[in-house]
């Protein structure tokens, strides 16, 4: 983990020192990464989000009395999906998809000698290869989290309004905005950015650690994805521990 932090710091420093003419290269790579990690993952993320949104509503509606359901469903969706499940499920999708791709690509480049070839003409690989991928993945994960939460709410509330005469979509939306605070949004987005940074940083670090053999590519890719998933769980636990009011649990 420490080597990943060192890599992230070194990449940011290298990118900050780039001349203005070079920033176009970094921007193009960042944009391509956002396209691959974010835009191309939207269908999968929306499918998972809609399914989860409906399932939460189905399970909670089956167990709740009619009175006060709308308020409770809104708060449940905000807490469960907006703050907790949404960001980490998006992180899992991105780690398996883009994290694996980054680790495989960088380890292939390393074993083929492309990274050293770039260094051999005076180009810092961290600035050109690592930094834009980290920024791209972090932005994509945060954006996908917003997409996930929106899709889950729309699907969940839509299902609830369609299945219960006492509930309306507009009414559920109102309870949602009442249940959601700026703090909730900040936690969700902040966690997503942390997830994205950790995923890209860990997978890039594993990819660059590959030695000169083709068997290193699958080995490093697997290590990268497993480590990234583990890191996301650790981040989730730490952020939850820092943001949850544990006093309320014992009241």
């Amino acid at each position, binding site marked *: 983990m420490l080597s990943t932090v060192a890599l992230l710091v070194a990449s940011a420093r290298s990118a900050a020192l780039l001349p203005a003419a070079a920033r176009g290269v970094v921007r193009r790579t960042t944009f391509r990464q956002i396209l691959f990690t974010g835009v191309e993952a939207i269908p999968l993320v929306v499918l998972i989000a809609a399914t989860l949104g409906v399932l939460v509503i189905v399970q909670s509606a089956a167990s709740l009395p009619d009175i006060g359901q709308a308020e409770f469903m809104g708060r449940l969706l905000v807490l469960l999906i907006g703050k907790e499940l949404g960001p980490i499920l998006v992180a899992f999708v991105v780690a398996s998809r883009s994290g694996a791709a980054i680790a495989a690509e960088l380890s292939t480049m390393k074993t083929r000698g*492309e990274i050293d070839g770039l260094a051999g*003409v005076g180009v810092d690989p961290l600035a050109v290869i690592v930094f834009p991928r980290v920024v791209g993945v972090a932005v994509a994960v945060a954006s996908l989290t917003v997409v996930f939460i929106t899709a889950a709410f729309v699907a969940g509330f839509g299902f609830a309004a369609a299945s219960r005469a006492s509930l309306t979509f507009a009414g559920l939306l109102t309870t949602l905005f009442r249940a959601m605070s700026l703090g909730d949004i900040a936690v969700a987005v902040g966690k997503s950015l942390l997830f994205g940074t950790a995923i890209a940083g860990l997978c890039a670090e594993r990819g660059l650690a590959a030695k*000169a053999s083709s068997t290193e590519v699958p080995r490093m890719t697997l290590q990268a994805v497993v480590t990234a998933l583990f890191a996301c769980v650790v981040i989730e636990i730490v952020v939850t521990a820092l943001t949850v009011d544990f006093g309320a649990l014992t009241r």
Partner: protein
Amino acid sequence: MTLLRLEAASFMEAGAASLAPVSLEVSSGEIVVVEAPEIVAGAVLAHGCLGFLPPQSGQVWLFGERLAGRADAQLSHLRRRAALSTSSLPLLANQTVRDNIGIPLLMRGLPAAGTRSLVSALLERFGIEHCGLKRPHEITQREHELALAARALAVPADLVVLDNPRLPPAARGLLQDKIDAGSAVLAIVTHAALIPEAVRKIPVELA
């Protein structure tokens, strides 16, 4: 001024070759030719000169700094003053030939418009203008070698290391331009008979 100095430095790269100790010095404004016994040996020596391979014995000094025991991050400021062309370290597979040659120039602050015209002129000089928008897997090995050489000779480096250079006649003047500007060129070849007598040659042997 001595830009590169090897003092009884031997190198071994697993799966490649093992070189006997070699001593050489490359100073500003000169071309030094090393005659390697085989192509793979030349690549191993090229890697060692820029610190991609630590010496098994002896020492390597690049721009007056000893390379032994240094990580890549600590060598980047030295490599920024050098340029290496060797088929063992290929072009980036996910970039076009044009971008592969242009990225090192952009990284050194050359404006995009200037980079574009310089790269176009280089591609023409090396006879690979038709490869500009192709990716490395879409060109021949010979075209790949020429693109690597073009990339190394494009950057404003104090020391250019060319492994097995087979430059077209139109591009050979670039070597003289480098010398005239005070840079140095280390060319690693396997057929020294092709090099004029006046050029200093150093033989390298396998261990």
